[in-house]
């Protein structure tokens, strides 16, 4: 099997996987906020009673606020996934270099950077909501920036460089097509 056939075959599978994720991820966010009061702290517990994720029942109003805030990182993530799916739809047709590819890579990079920023905001809001029922003095605001965020930022930066490389590839392809 030549390289292009391999790209087409694997891209078809990735396209399917991304389509699946585009449905499952928003569904996960909805279910998470609907059943927030019933979720355990850890999904699997052995020989120990499971503790709830939050110590008190979250009122519906806070659940709605939580869900609306979750739409921030979700929108960035969905935007990124839509772009990557579009990229694989080109690959599965055997189109490797085009102007569209460059903008897809640039958009994916932007989506990743935005996702990091919005995730930090989301996690901070979550910490406020989860501790809103605590007595005064025990309510917290957590602003986190961990290795996961650094990794995503690095990936975003690398994707941006790849976008510039793709642009050079596109110019070379166009030149090749217009060489008689």
């Amino acid at each position, binding site marked *: 099997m030549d390289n292009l056939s391999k790209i087409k075959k694997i891209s078809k599978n990735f396209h399917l996987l991304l389509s699946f994720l585009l449905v499952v991820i928003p569904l996960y966010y909805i279910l998470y906020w609907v059943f927030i009061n019933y979720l355990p702290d850890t999904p699997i517990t052995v020989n120990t009673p499971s503790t709830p994720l939050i110590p008190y029942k979250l009122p519906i109003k806070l659940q709605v606020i939580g869900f609306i805030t979750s739409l921030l990182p979700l929108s960035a993530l969905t935007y990124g996934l839509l772009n990557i799916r579009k990229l694989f739809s080109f690959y599965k047709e055997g189109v490797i270099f085009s102007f569209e590819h460059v903008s897809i890579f640039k958009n994916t990079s932007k989506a990743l950077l935005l996702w990091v920023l919005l995730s930090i905001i989301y996690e901070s809001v979550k910490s406020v909501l989860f501790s809103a029922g605590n007595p005064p003095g025990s309510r917290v605001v957590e602003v986190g920036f961990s290795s996961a965020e650094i990794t995503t930022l690095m990936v975003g930066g690398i994707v941006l460089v790849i976008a510039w490389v793709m642009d050079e590839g596109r110019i070379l392809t*166009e*030149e090749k097509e*217009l*060489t*008689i």
Partner: protein
Amino acid sequence: MSIIVNLDVILAMRKMKSVELAKLVGITEQNLSILKTGKAKAIRISTLDAICKHLECQPGDILEYKNHE
């Protein structure tokens, strides 16, 4: 661009059709059209060689430089 492709003129002088030349040179009609309309970014020496051979002309007859300044 300052380079003008006079392929049309030479073809008319030799009373040859584009389809015929494309077949003789071994390129597609579409590519020959790109060359004739001046949209081509580059021309291979082998293509130029084949065109000159079949049209019995010199590269200078096909390509002309005109300063537009």
